[in-house]
C-alpha cells in the first residue's frame, strides 16, 4: 500500500493508504483529526476548510497523493500553535462574539477567515463587505452576521 508523508499541525506524519483517498478521510478516518468536517465532499460547503502552507483549501477534494512531504497541513486543531498561543486571535474573536450555534461549520469558518485576512493583507488592504460576500462557507444555523463581526475584530489582533 502506498505510503504518504506530510507535516500535520507541526508534526511529521506518515500514513499508508491508496493514492486517491481524499485528504479529508485520511485526516478523519485514519489519523483521528476530526476538526475538519464533512458537509458535502464536493468542495462546495467548505466545512472541511484547512490550510496548506498557510492557504485555505478543502481536503475533501484533494487526493492524499497530491500532498508533498514538505507540505504543511494545518487543521483547526493546529491553528493556535501557528501563533504560539492557546488560542489564535480569530478563535478568541469567535468566543468574544459567541459566533457558534451548533458549531459544525465553525472550524471551517475560522480557517477560512484567517486565510481571508492574510490574503487581503498580502494585497495591502483590509477586508470589506464585498470580501465577506465572497465567503462560500455554509452556516446552516445562519450565524453570518456574527461571523462577519468576528472576522473584523479578529483581524485587528492578527
Amino acid at each position, binding site marked *: 500500500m502506498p505510503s504518504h508523508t506530510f507535516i500535520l499541525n507541526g508534526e511529521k506524519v506518515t500514513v499508508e*493508504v*491508496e493514492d486517491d*483517498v*481524499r485528504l479529508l*478521510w485520511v485526516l*478523519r*478516518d*485514519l489519523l*483521528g483529526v*476530526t*476538526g475538519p*468536517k*464533512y*458537509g*458535502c*465532499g*464536493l*468542495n*462546495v*460547503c467548505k*466545512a472541511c476548510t484547512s490550510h*496548506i502552507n498557510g*492557504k*485555505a*483549501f*478543502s*481536503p*475533501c*477534494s*484533494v*487526493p492524499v497523493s*497530491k500532498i508533498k512531504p514538505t507540505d504543511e497541513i494545518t487543521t483547526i*486543531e493546529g491553528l493556535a500553535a501557528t501563533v504560539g498561543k492557546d*488560542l489564535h486571535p480569530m*478563535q478568541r474573536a*469567535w*468566543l468574544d462574539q459567541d459566533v*457558534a*450555534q*451548533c*458549531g*459544525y*461549520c465553525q*472550524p471551517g469558518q*475560522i480557517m477560512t477567515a484567517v486565510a481571508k485576512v492574510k490574503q487581503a493583507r498580502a494585497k495591502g488592504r483590509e477586508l470589506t*463587505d464585498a470580501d*465577506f*460576500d*465572497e*465567503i*462560500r*462557507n*455554509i452556516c*446552516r*444555523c*445562519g*450565524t*453570518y*452576521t456574527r*461571523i462577519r463581526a468576528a472576522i473584523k475584530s479578529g483581524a485587528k489582533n492578527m
Partner: protein
Amino acid sequence: MAEQRRSPHTPDTEPEEPAAPPDGLARRRFLGYLVAAPTLAVAVQWGAEALDPQPAAASIPSLPLPEDIFDLGDMQTLAAAPTSGLIWVQVNSDGTASFAVPRAEVGQGMTTAVAMMIAEELDLPLDKVAVTLADARPELMMNQFTGGSNSMRSLFVPVRTAAAIARQRLVSTAAARWNVPASELSTKAGVLRHGSGRSATYASLATAAASTRTVQVSVQLKSPSQFTVLGTPTNRVDAHDIVTGRKTFAMDMQVPNALPTMVRRPPTINGTVRSVHNADAVRAMPGITDVAVITHGVAVRGRTFGQCIDAVRALEVTWGPGTVDGESDDTVLAKVKAAQLPLAVPPLLTEHVDAEFTFAFASNSPLEPDNAIADVRPDRAEIWSSLKVPITAQQDIAAMLGLPVSAVKVHVAQGGGSFGRHLFHDVAAEAAEISHEMGKPVKLMWSRTDDFRQGRTHPMCVSRIRATYALGNVVSFEQRHTSVQTSFSHGLGEMITATAARLPVAGNLGLAETVFALTQSSPYDFGATTQLLNEVPLRFNTGSMRNIYSPNVVCAQELVVDQLAARMGTDPVEFRRRFLKDDRLRAVMEKAVAVGQWGRTLPKGVAQGIGLHAEYRGAVASLVEIDCRPETVNRPVQDGVTGPRVTRALVVVDAGLPINPRGLEAQMMGGMNDAVAMALTSSLHMKNGIPLEGSWDNYFYTRQWNTPPDLRVVVMPATTGQPSGAGELGVAPSFAAIACAYARATGTMPTTFPINHATLGFEPYPLEPSTPQSPVDGLTNAS
C-alpha cells in the same frame, strides 16, 4: 446513575428552611426529593409544575382560536405531567454540578440555558455546571421530546427547583455543622459563608450533604428580580470546544470497529433493491470490508468514507419502484389544489381579496449530514446519534431487531443542526439494520446528496385566503391550508392521544388538524375567522422544518393583510395598529417601527415590509428592507443565486422572560437567514419521484452573499415571567416581512415561494450513482 433512577418511594419529609427572601408576594413552593446517593443529589418530578400558570380560556374576550388559549407547547407540557419520570441535579465532590438533560442539543443553545438555570438557583459559577445529553429514558415517555420550541418552557421550573433544593440542602448541612441558623448563611459562587467568618466550598460539603434516604422537600425559587444569571447575555457553554475543533459530533466518535459505512441509494424516493450484480467485486475493492443489501439500498463498509464513496459508485444495482415515482412539482401541485377545502363566505356583494400561495418542497437538511453509529449484537444493540425523540428510536429499533427495549441502549449525540430533521431516526434505524446485516459495528453517514434527495422534506403546500371587507372593517378572513401530508410519525401522536380528552378542541380532528389548530391563529380582529388544514397522503418522506406550518401560513396571512391595507388606502403599519388584538404584538411592532425607521425614504425598487407573529407564548415583529433593483438582482456570484437582497433586517422579540438574551438573539438571526432562504432562494425541485438538488450549490440556503449586511435583533424586557419558545419563533414573521417587502418593492404580490423557484439555477447531478465523486482539484484554488 442507575442507582439514582429508583423511584422515590415512601418519601419522608424534611423541615423546610427559609430560602430566598420573600418579595412581598406569597410565593409558591416547589417539591422535590433528596435522593440517597454518594454525593448530594436532588430529583424533581418533571411536568406538572412547568405548565404555564395561566388558565385555559377565560382571559381572552371573544371567540379565541384554539391556539390562543392552549397551544402546542402547553399540550406538550401538560402531556408530560402524568407520565413524567424524575430528573436529577447532582453536586459532585469537586464542587461542580451535573445534569443529564433529556433533550437534544442541535445548536439552539438549550444546554447553555439549562446550565444558566442551575447556576442561578445553586449560586454556582456557570463553568462549574456540566450539562450532558441523557440517553433514551423510556420511563420519561414524551418528556424526552425536543421539538415545538418547548424546552425552555418545560424545563424552567423543574430544573430550577432541583438546583434550589440542592442549594438549600448545602445551606442546612453547613448550618448544622456550624451550629448556626440556616437563615444566617449566604451562598455565592459555590461558597457558603456565615457572618462569623466561617466559609465552606460546595466541594467540601457535597458528600456530607448527601442524603441517606429519599426525603421529600420543598423550596422557594428566586423571583426574576433576584436573578443575576438568568436574563444576562451569556456565551455558549460549548463555545471553546467548538472553536478548537474539540466538540464531538456522532461522526467524530471513536467506537471500536465501527468503520465508515455508506449506502448506494435508488434513483427514486424509497426505491427498493431488485438485484445487485457485482457485490463480490465491490467487496474486493481497496479498503472495503462488507457489502449488504438493505431495505432502501446497498450498504458498504470500509476503512475510510472515501473508499465507501468509491464502492457505492461502483455497485451495479437493479432497482424496484419507489413510493412516489412519476411525481413532479406540477403533478403534486395539482393534487394539492384538488384537495383544497371550500371557502365558506361567498365573494358576493362585498369587497374581497382572494389570494392563493404555493410553497415548494424544502429541505430541512442540517450541515452535518444524517449519521449514526450502531453496534448490533445478537442479544443487544447500542446506538449513537443526534435524536430529538430517542425513545421512539429505541422502541422502533428494538422492534426491528426483535430485541426487548431494555436491550437497546440509545445515546443522544450532539447534533450539527436539525431544523426538524432529527425528530426522525431514519439514519439510526438504517445503521441498526446495516449493523445487524453485517454483524459488525458501523458508522453510517449519508452523503450530502442522499440528505437532499432521500432525506426528509418540508412538503409542498398551498394556502388560499379570502378576506371580505366593508365600511372600513374586515368582515371575514378564511384561510385554507393544503399540504402534502407532514409526517408526525416521530411520536408526537402518542402525546396528543394521551391528552386529547383535555384539549379544548371540539370535534373529531385528525392528528395534523389538531396540531394545526394548536399552532395557528390570526392575531387580527377580522370578524369571522376560520383557518383549516387538509392534507394529501402522498408517500414522500416529510417532516417539519423550523416549524411545521407557521412560516407558510403567516407569510400568506401577512401578504393578504398588506393587500387589505392597500385596498383601504392605509399604510401597512397603520392598518395593523387598527386591527391587532394582541398587546404584545402591538408592542413589538411599535418597537420595530421606531428602531427600523418604518416609512423612511428609499429609492424606487427598494422597500420595507413588516411581518408579525405570536406563537410559543412569544411575540415577534420583523421589519426588513429589500433591494429589488436590477443591478442588485443580477449581481454576479459564481455557482450561486443572487436575486433580490434583504439589505437591512430587524427582529424585535418578546420572549416572555428571556433566559439568555444572547442565545435568543442568535435564534432570531438564524430565523431571519432561514426566512431569506425560504422566501427567495431555497427549494427542492421534485422531478419524476426525486428532488434534483444534490449539493449546497443546488439547494440555495442563504450564503454570505445573500445574508442581510445589516441585521439587528432587539430583545424586549421580560413581559410574562415565563420563557417562551425561541428556536422557531423568528422564521414566520421574517418570511412574511420579506414577502411583503418584495411585494411593495416590485408592485407585484408574490404567490409562489421561493420567489426564484421557477428558475432552475444549476445543472443537476446524475441520479445514478446516487453519490457524486469528490473532486480532485482542491489545490488549484487554495487561497
